[in-house]
């Protein structure tokens, strides 16, 4: 029983950054803008959250600063791709490189270090073995992360704004004909995606109580894979995030048992992904207008 609970708690802790980033990515992609940028948004969010917490001593200010950082990066991407119609893939890669460069530059400028920031106020999930799951609530970003995708699902399918997001992602010309401002809807969707993915980054740096160079470590791309895996549907994407996190947890636990050669264990998340993609998910059809213009 306690092993199962430990497994569950670890899976949820690992899943939180994926869930935030996927929530942002689903919004942007459904509005027709490719979300290669999630990695950069996360890294930028992680850094600005650390900075906010460092200067204020309050992790909640860090959360707000992280959101602000993500909004700024999201707006840069939005201006490039919507206002100036830059290629979305190129702009996405540029944003990711920009985030790496900017965080490294400011890390050096502010803290004179190329590796990590000093310790800042943050959130720590409880790790006592008796209250594993309740301990998760000690870090408020964990429950927030768990509801991020359901909230996006509600936004997308139950509100007028969500209808517009889906409309401009499928058929922008038709949406424009009935008076929807395609550009405005996309601006909002991409800015929100920056803020949400940045929360995933904020979780990383506040849980760690510091920023380290490159700490997003590819999580943004895993979130993007989870979106495609979940066929651009928020709830399915949430399941995909949990699935990836569970595979990682399984890998960690099996590696510790040392019964199986480590090379096989390291393969587990990738093999499971391929099996699931081929066997369970079926054909993934992206929003019709994704990446156009």
């Amino acid at each position: 029983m306690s092993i199962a609970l430990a497994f569950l708690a670890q899976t949820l802790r690992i899943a939180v950054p994926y869930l935030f980033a996927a929530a942002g990515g689903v919004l942007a992609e459904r509005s027709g803008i490719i979300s290669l940028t999630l990695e950069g948004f996360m890294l930028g969010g992680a850094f600005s959250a650390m900075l906010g917490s460092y200067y204020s001593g309050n992790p909640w200010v860090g959360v707000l600063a992280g959101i602000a950082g993500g909004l700024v990066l999201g707006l840069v991407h939005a201006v490039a791709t919507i206002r100036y119609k830059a290629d979305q893939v190129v702009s996405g890669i540029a944003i990711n490189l920009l985030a790496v460069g900017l965080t490294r530059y400011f890390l050096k400028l502010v803290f004179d270090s190329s590796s990590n920031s000093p310790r800042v106020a943050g959130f720590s999930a409880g790790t006592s073995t008796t209250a594993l799951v309740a301990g998760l609530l000690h870090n408020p970003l964990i429950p927030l992360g768990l509801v991020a995708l359901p909230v996006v699902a509600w936004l997308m399918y139950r509100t007028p704004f969500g209808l517009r997001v889906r409309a401009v992602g499928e058929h922008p010309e038709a949406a424009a004909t009935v008076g929807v401002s395609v550009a405005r809807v996309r601006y909002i969707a991409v800015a929100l995606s920056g803020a949400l993915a940045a929360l995933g980054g904020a979780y990383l740096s506040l849980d760690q109580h510091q920023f380290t160079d490159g700490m997003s470590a590819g999580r943004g791309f895993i979130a993007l894979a989870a979106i495609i895996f979940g066929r651009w549907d928020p709830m399915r994407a949430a399941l995909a995030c949990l699935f990836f996190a569970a595979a990682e947890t399984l890998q960690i636990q099996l590696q510790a048992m040392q019964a199986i050669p480590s090379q096989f264990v390291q393969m587990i998340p990738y093999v499971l992904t391929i099996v699931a993609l081929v066997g369970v998910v079926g054909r993934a059809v992206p929003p019709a207008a994704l990446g156009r213009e």
Partner: protein
Amino acid sequence: MRSLVAFVGVLLLVHIALLFVHPAPPVPAASGNGLDIGIVFDVGGRGDKSFNDGAYRGGERAEHELGARVHFIEPGEGSDREAGLRLLAAEHMKLVIGVGFIFTDDLTALANEYPNTEFAGVDYALKLDSAGNVVPPPPNLAALKFREEQGSFLVGALAALVGKSKKLGFVGGMDIPLIHKFEAGYRAGVNYVCPDCTVIAQYAGVTPEAFRNPGRGKELALSQYQSGVNVIFHASGSTGLGVFEAARQTGTLAIGVDADQYSEAPGHVLTSMVKGVDAVVFDQIKKVRDGTFHGGVQEYGLAENGVGYIYDAHNRALIPDSVHARVEAIRAGIIAGRIAVPSTR
């Protein structure tokens, strides 16, 4: 960014300058007969609190004590590394040092291209040919290696003596032979003082990202601490900062690597397995000055102070005197050759 612009500018100037060089007369040495040394940092560069800072200290010391003129280059991502080495080689440095195993291929190529310049690679990774034999580095290239397994052996013994548990932990960064050396030495050290102890060894991944993933490091460490481990040795770059965070949260101990990492989690860092990058860089510059520099593989172990462990005012309270005496006896045994330390798993 400014340094990058300056760097590109310098490259352009060098390029234009080379256009005016006529092949007939030999190019005069750029800076006369001074002791000009070039050091190219790894990505990240100064402020990493580890390798690059160690190399910088070694270079600085050589400036003060040997009168060397040390030129540092801090590249950005990717191919700039090779350009940095080439720039220094073209400027007729007496010695060009690349810091980090990532320089291995670039150094080998440039050493062949500039046979009259001396090169040195810190943590140079030896290549094996198809028959499994070691490919020797070029004669003007010193392949500087550390006997990490010896230092790891000592911290392994220390961990087992202090840990109060039959389970010891190890967190590696990328799953590669360089890091297996740490694991092998650590395991052997643990079992030397505690034959029935087991070591749980885990790696953060199979790509270079595995050295920069503190979130993953923390989860690996938490699962080890929850399974009854009390001490974890990490050899995983900034991934290890997550191991320290886990130690802090669970009130347990961790062992740092490369440099003294006590300040990352005071009270939870039992010791650190340190590599004397500064001493090695200084030693090579001194050899160039004395005319005793030679290429080939050079290994720095406990005897040469190339590796060691931290025992000072910060962590003395964590290590009983009897344990310290025992570990010192083991150190003497390794230096004298009485204790054999394996370097592979």
